[in-house]
Structure formats: structure tokens, C-alpha cells
């Protein structure tokens, strides 16, 4: 069974541009989560989507947004990129809206570099 997949593996953007990151959950999982792992800041919760709806978001500005598609895959968009947005972005999935009650399985991540 395939795990969580993310694309692209690496993304290089310049300040002010927009970045789009994609995630496909494990088959049968309906919840998708996004986390940011920036150097020195650790893993920070960004967003939670379930059944196409945003269920929760972390302490990030509105230029971090996303959506979940009917096939449960998800997209994270970061607008007006800033240098400090450089980080590893990790996507995770879990069964049907269980949130943090059950295991969250992570993908390999997308390394975003903003120059």
C-alpha cells in the first residue's frame, strides 16, 4: 500500500512569488494535515483538512492557505513568499477526521527554498 506522497521534492522560489505544494494521502484516509519544519523552529502545525473542509489552522498568516479535493488530495499555497518561509513542508494523513486521536502518517516532505 502506498504511503503519503508529496510533490515536488524540492522547490526554489524568489521572494514575493507564490508556491504550490501537493499531497496525496494514504488510500482510505480522509484527513490531511500540513506542518512546517523550519530550522530552529521545529515542527509547527499549519492546517488540517477533512472531507474537503478546513478544520483547524495553526498560528500562520493568511498567505498560507490550502484546499482539499474530492479525492482527498490536498494543496498548500504560500503567497507573497518571504525568506523565512524556507523550510521542509510535511503532509500527513489519518483516518476519517480522527484528528490527533489516531496515528498521523507523514510523507517525505517538500523542501521549499526562498531566495
Amino acid at each position, binding site marked *: 500500500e502506498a504511503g503519503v506522497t508529496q510533490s515536488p521534492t524540492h522547490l526554489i522560489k524568489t521572494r514575493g512569488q507564490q508556491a504550490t505544494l501537493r499531497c496525496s494521502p494514504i488510500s482510505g484516509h480522509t484527513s490531511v494535515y500540513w506542518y512546517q519544519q523550519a530550522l530552529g523552529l521545529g*515542527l509547527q502545525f499549519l492546517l488540517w483538512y477533512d472531507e474537503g473542509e478546513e478544520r483547524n489552522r495553526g498560528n500562520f498568516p493568511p498567505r498560507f492557505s490550502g484546499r482539499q479535493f474530492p479525492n482527498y488530495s490536498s494543496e498548500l499555497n504560500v503567497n507573497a513568499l518571504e525568506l523565512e518561509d524556507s523550510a521542509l513542508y*510535511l503532509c500527513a494523513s489519518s483516518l476519517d477526521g480522527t484528528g490527533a486521536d489516531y496515528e*498521523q502518517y507523514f510523507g*517525505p516532505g517538500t523542501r521549499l527554498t526562498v531566495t
Partner: protein
Amino acid sequence: SQQGEEDPQALSIQEGENATMNCSYKTSINNLQWYRQNSGRGLVHLILIRSNEREKHSGRLRVTLDTSKKSSSLLITASRAADTASYFCATDSFFSGNTGKLIFGQGTTLQVKP
């Protein structure tokens, strides 16, 4: 803010030895999860232990949870060079309801020397 804090920050051992990592957290939880991360890539889920459980095993891994002390430990027995990685504990928050949010510690970097 970080809920969990791992101790030690770094650990270096010889192959075949046991490795013990500790995690402390601040608020009541429903469950605690341990993850491994190799070379800044994705997280691999190791074990989830619920607040009503005290110990859990998976292969060479043993996790304990002491809710009275708000702490957990991860023991890796008979370590291998392939166990070299960063290990993180992650918790939910009992009082916040189902937010979907895992709160991670800063991690322990384990080096296993051949």
C-alpha cells in the same frame, strides 16, 4: 510553542547498545506518538501510546508513559547503524478537543556507530 521536550538532545552509542530517549510534556494528553526522521526527510511513525496505557512494544522499541510525571521514554534495544536518526515525541492536547494538531518536541539526535 513546544509541548514536548526531548532529553538528551543528542546521543551517541555503539552498535548493539541500547538507546533511551525521554520526552516531557506540559499539559494533559489523550495520546503520545513517537516518530523517527532520517536526514531531514519525512517522519516515520513508530508508536502511539494512549493516556490509559503504561507501556507498549513494537519489535525492538519499547515506549513507556507516566502521566503523573507527564513524561514518556523510548527505548531502542540492540541498536543498529540504521537507527541513526532524529526521534521526536508528539502529543495532542486533552483540553483543546480534537484539533488535529500534534505538538512536537525538539527531538533527540541519535548516532549509532558501527
